């Protein structure tokens, strides 16, 4: 921790910081908080504990660190201490609404990190094991699973961005939503976007953290709002730590099977595996996708669109 030179290289890579632009949400901010706790200058509190638990475990801070601070290890150790000290934290971990949970155990079975278990009649999340991937959000038939703070990736946040983009009267070209995994495709894209690639007016890029966090309902909502197509960029299956890529493929197959029965072309929902650091593959894929759905036209004639 002491080797952090406060350069701030980490924070521009952190999805949490990027969402709020507040120092306290950046990896450097977390390190400073921990430093304050250790030196006794700060009193530990639920607020600070939650801040330390607000992290998508993507590890991009550690990779970007100029000084080799093992941020992931530092944060994990701090989290364990905070739990031991009895702090009541949620952070970005997944939570269960016990009042409506049907105890079906589907979430327990599916979590790749074995973070969910059934204890004393309730589903509980081990907040140290939970990697905040959000893969469990879509599995719950009771809609009883939430992620405390989503930093732009929670279903309701995505829904409102979808509505805004597809119904913007100033952008008649809007026709598609591109969901990007915050681990693989988006970082590469981000690194390239400012100088080499002009963001298209035809699609909106929404970052989902892990692609497994994307709810089937959010994809359907995009179509209800008039999307011609949806492109989902995920990690190659063997590179996704959370099993999200395989899940999103299976979930989208479930939807495209319905689409076929409705005479809606199934290639309106496409999934592309984009490995880290390959922005060209993304731009090529997106261009091809937009061309394809452009030739298909709208999924249905919109009634009452001005």
């Amino acid at each position: 921790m002491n080797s952090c030179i406060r350069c701030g290289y980490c924070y521009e890579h952190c999805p949490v910081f990027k969402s709020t632009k507040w120092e306290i949400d950046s990896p450097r901010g977390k390190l400073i908080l921990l430093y304050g706790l250790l030196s006794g200058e700060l009193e530990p509190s639920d607020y600070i504990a939650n801040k330390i638990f607000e992290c998508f475990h993507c590890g991009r801070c550690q990779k970007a660190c100029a000084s080799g601070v093992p941020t992931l290890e530092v944060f994990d150790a701090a989290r364990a201490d905070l739990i031991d000290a009895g702090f009541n934290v949620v952070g970005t971990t997944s939570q269960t609404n016990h009042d409506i949970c049907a105890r079906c155990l589907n979430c327990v079975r599916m979590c790749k990190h074995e973070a969910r278990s059934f204890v004393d009649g309730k589903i509980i999340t081990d907040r140290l094991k939970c990697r905040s991937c959000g893969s469990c959000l879509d599995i719950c038939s009771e809609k009883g699973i939430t992620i405390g703070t989503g930093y732009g990736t929670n279903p309701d946040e995505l829904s409102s961005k979808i509505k805004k983009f597809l119904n913007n009267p100033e952008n008649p070209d809007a026709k598609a939503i591109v969901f990007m995994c915050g681990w693989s495709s988006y970082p590469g894209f981000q690194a390239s976007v400012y100088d080499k690639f002009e963001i298209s007016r035809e699609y909106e890029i929404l970052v989902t953290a892990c692609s497994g966090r994307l709810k089937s309902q959010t994809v359907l909502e995009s179509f209800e709002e008039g999307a011609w197509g949806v492109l989902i960029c995920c990690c190659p299956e063997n590179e996704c730590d959370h099993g999200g890529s395989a899940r999103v493929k299976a979930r989208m197959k479930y939807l495209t099977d319905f689409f076929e029965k409705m005479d809606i072309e199934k290639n309106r929902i496409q999934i592309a595996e984009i490995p880290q650091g390959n922005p060209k593959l993304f731009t090529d894929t997106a261009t091809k996708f937009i061309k394809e759905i452009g030739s298909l036209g709208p999924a249905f004639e919109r009634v009452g669109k001005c």
Partner: protein
Amino acid sequence: MVVAEQKPLKDILSYIDDSKRIIIAGCHGCVTVCSTGGQKEVDILASLIEIAGKKQGKEYEIKKITLQRQCDPEFLEELIEMAKDYDAIISMACGAGVQLVAERVGPIKVFPALNTTFIGVVETKGEWAERCQACGDCKLYLTGGICPVTRCSKSLLNGPCGGSHEGFCEVDPKTPCGWQLIVDRLKAIGCLHTYATIVEPADWSKSRDGGPRRMIREDLK
């Protein structure tokens, strides 16, 4: 639990062809636990119907609700009240739930969204399998806890037929032979002698063949 699967979307759409205002009603019971008729599935079906409608140039007005259980009359009250303003109800409960709704809701069309398939268990994540046919005269005490009525494709009660091959059933080579499972289990628990018990022909009147069944418990009245 009761396990059900969603019907083909085309079928569901054909039921509501001449309806405009529709309620989609889920159930927090068995069909939530088998991920077929809970709140999430209600949302998805509603979106699919809406998209299919727009594709055909038709606007549906859809109301979503999920009831505690559709097989208990008290839990239906909210739905019955709401139904007055709608043309049809699509129930995402099992067949029992759909029927109780239809019985109680008055002169409104009620359609099933699911095919109720069996009483079963979770074998592994995402896989359910049949275990009980509700025969009304449980034989599990004799068969090591493995049901011959359900697990034997032919519901034989006194050992396998000649089609049991290397532990699998001739009806479907991927299905384990129920009687092989029973014999293996009886051996494992040291009860192979019960295999010699001749089971009398079953009284199928206790099963569906005796007409619809009821249970009456005076002590609960």
